[in-house]
């Protein structure tokens, strides 16, 4: 047997000894207490602190040095204004509390939920729950009831939240089964965004009030802009954007008490039959029936109009200027109808089993509050991206002065007439979004009738919902 020319006896011992030592040290380190132990959630019956002025952030709960908490929000919202608002909050709370706002990537939910199950969630609060996820967040224990935390908060407006909102129905949708879960971070009011230059070319000076008249106007726009190959209307394949918004102009409440969209209502048939005519008449084409993430056809000026969130309008204004792009509330079913549109509220929430959730809620209440320098770092930025402020004060202060976006101020006229999507629609939204489109596409291609399309879609949606045991 060939021997190793290098004598290994002593080096092997050293090696094994060192390995064992390192392994032992590693095991000890792994078994020792984590660097940042999660503080237990503050008991719900904590005493309210003394009332603070509205603009002032929360008073400290810990004595003898600043406590620190971590919060989370998606990168977009962090960069839009939450980072600035949090920096201002930390400045105001110097020596009392320090909030570290982490900008999370998309897809953080399963990870956070696993940490909640392990009781190791490091964040106290999150700055953004899209409306269609809120139901899941509650049912999974990700979002916790915050009534007691809001009551205990020293942030002044927390004591009378409802009165600060632009309309009382904004308050209703933050609650589920009587409990408060969410603090609004923006209100989305869906609008019709259109190219005003194309409309002028067709000899029309304003968007008609009713769908019937709007349909005629689309025909005129198509004729007048035929040389440029302009497609009159775009539909985005996300239920809440175009199809859902059109439906609420026909029917105020489009879901049942279980949160399932009532697709078998006569008004939904009216909606899809209207679009069926538009497909047949070339007012919508396969090119303007677009997937969620691709609005290039709108950005490149090949479409006259679409119904969407305000970002649809803002994007085109950036490209073509305020003189050539405009927005309005969508047309209504009848001239006598008060204007109505799709609305939803996206919100911040406190993590179930999160550490020091009281401090997290105080942070949310302050940066998303109705007034003060800290909240002023957030609300005006919302208008420049997507969505609108929820508070009367912020409407007066920022929306009415946003001369680049006059359509946002106009859109508030519809709040009282519209029904804002409640948390419960989240129970059926993902199934609806997944199942409805193949049926509608077959209907609009003329392969099946409206009845078959609606019945087929509803059957699949109900089957999907029935798989849930919640």
């Amino acid at each position, binding site marked *: 047997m060939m021997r190793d020319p290098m004598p*290994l006896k002593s080096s*092997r011992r050293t*090696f*094994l000894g060192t*390995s064992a030592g390192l392994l032992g040290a590693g095991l000890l380190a792994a078994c020792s207490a984590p660097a940042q132990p999660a503080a237990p959630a503050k008991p719900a019956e904590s005493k309210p602190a003394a009332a603070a002025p509205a603009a002032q952030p929360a008073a400290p709960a810990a004595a003898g040095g600043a406590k620190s908490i971590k919060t989370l929000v998606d990168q977009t919202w962090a960069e839009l204004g939450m980072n600035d608002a949090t920096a201002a909050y930390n400045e105001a709370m110097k020596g009392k509390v320090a909030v570290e706002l982490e900008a999370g990537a998309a*897809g953080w939910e*399963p990870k956070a*939920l696993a940490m909640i*199950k392990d009781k190791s969630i490091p964040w106290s609060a999150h700055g953004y729950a899209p409306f269609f996820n809120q139901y*899941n967040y509650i*049912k*999974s*224990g990700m979002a916790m009831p915050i009534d007691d935390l809001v009551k205990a908060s020293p942030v002044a407006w927390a004591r009378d939240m409802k009165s600060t909102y632009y309309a009382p129905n904004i308050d209703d949708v933050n609650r589920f089964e009587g409990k408060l879960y969410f603090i609004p971070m923006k209100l989305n009011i869906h609008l019709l965004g259109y190219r005003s230059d194309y409309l002028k070319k067709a000899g029309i000076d304003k968007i008609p009030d009713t769908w019937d008249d709007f349909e005629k106007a689309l025909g005129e726009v198509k004729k007048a802009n035929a040389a440029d190959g302009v497609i009159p209307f775009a539909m985005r*394949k*996300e239920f809440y954007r175009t199809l859902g918004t059109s439906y609420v102009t026909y029917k105020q409440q489009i879901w049942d008490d279980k949160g399932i969209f009532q697709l078998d209502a006569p008004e939904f048939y009216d909606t899809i039959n209207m679009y069926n005519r538009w497909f047949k008449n070339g007012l919508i084409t*396969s*090119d303007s*029936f677009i*997937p*969620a*993430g*691709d609005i*290039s*056809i709108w950005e*490149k000026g*090949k479409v006259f109009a679409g119904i969407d969130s305000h970002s649809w309008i803002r994007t085109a204004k950036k490209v073509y200027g305020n003189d050539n792009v405009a927005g309005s509330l969508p047309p209504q079913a009848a001239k006598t109808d008060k204007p109505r549109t799709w609305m939803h509220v996206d919100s911040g929430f406190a993590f179930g089993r999160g550490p020091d959730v009281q401090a997290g809620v105080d942070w949310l209440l302050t940066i998303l509050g109705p007034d003060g320098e800290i909240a002023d770092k957030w609300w005006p930025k919302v208008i420049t991206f997507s969505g609108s402020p929820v508070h009367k004060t912020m409407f007066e202060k920022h929306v009415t002065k946003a001369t680049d976006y006059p359509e946002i101020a106009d859109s508030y006229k519809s709040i009282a007439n519209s029904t804002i999507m409640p948390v419960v629609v989240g129970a059926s939204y*993902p*199934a609806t*979004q*997944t199942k409805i*489109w*193949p049926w509608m*596409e*077959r209907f609009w291609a003329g392969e099946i009738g409206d009845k078959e399309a609606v019945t087929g879609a509803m059957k699949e949606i109900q089957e*999907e*919902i029935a*798989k*849930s*045991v*919640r």
Partner: protein
Amino acid sequence: MQTLSPSAGTSTTLRAEAAANRAARRRRIVGDALMGYAFILPAVGLYLLFQGYPIVRGLMIAFSDYRFLIPDHQPFNGVNNWFEMWRDATFWAAMNRSFQYTGYYVVGLLVIGLLGAVLISSIHGQKESSVYRVIAYLPVVLPIAVALLLWRQLLNNQFGYVNHLLRDVLGLPAPNWLGDAAWVIPTLAIAAVWKQMGQTILLFLIGIYGINRELYEAAAIDGAGALRRFLHITLPLLRPSFVLVLVLSAGVLGTAEESLIFFPNENGPRAAAQIVGRYSYDVAFKLGDMRWGYAAAMSLTVGIISMVASAIVFRVLRSDRPD
């Protein structure tokens, strides 16, 4: 009292020495073994942590009704997930699309990979060929999201360069790649082939560079043309490369990335992009209670099919090794 003779004493001493030697050898063997285990421990540890545990956990989840959104809900449900799969029309439709996708992908990858490798191998200059190898490999290192968003723009029916070339320059009919249900699966495969072809080209190139050049010279002397040399020398001797490429492609049956990036919030026209990996993703992360149990069972099924396909490839294309 009996006294030991000198020979008996020597024998005892020898036995004692032999025992000591055996003990020393045992210690050395144990020491060698310990040393070996110590060396492989990090690799084994990492494997168990990042491969072994997820496989076992995945298996456990697949045989349960794990619903991620319901706290502590993971009841064992035997093979119920497979009974559901059997009755699930959406699963079978998705599976059908995945097989189509895999077919387009594998054929595309083999043809383009082989063609690219043959072309690059025919370049004589070392520098030039290395430039082409780098160019061919670039898509592999490009992040998949970037690569696929690039393809989404290229294939845009109105503004994409591909249709501009087909329609406006060549005067040919241009398909609506992402808007026509019939074209969605081939389109997903085209983008995926482009992304992976660099790796395949390199694998085939390694095989081609390993072929003895004298075989080509002898064949040329015997009057074999380029095509015959390719068919009778290159192709047969690339059999191990084919095995490798096909086995590496087997996992594509369960892919979801292309569908998710091209159609983030819906499944494409008439759900044409709902391949089985995407369906499994939707079940696990979007729909209802987030049924990880059912999604894991689907993934396990796809994984087993891929393994069987790999075994068949090995069996059919195995080459005899010299002793």
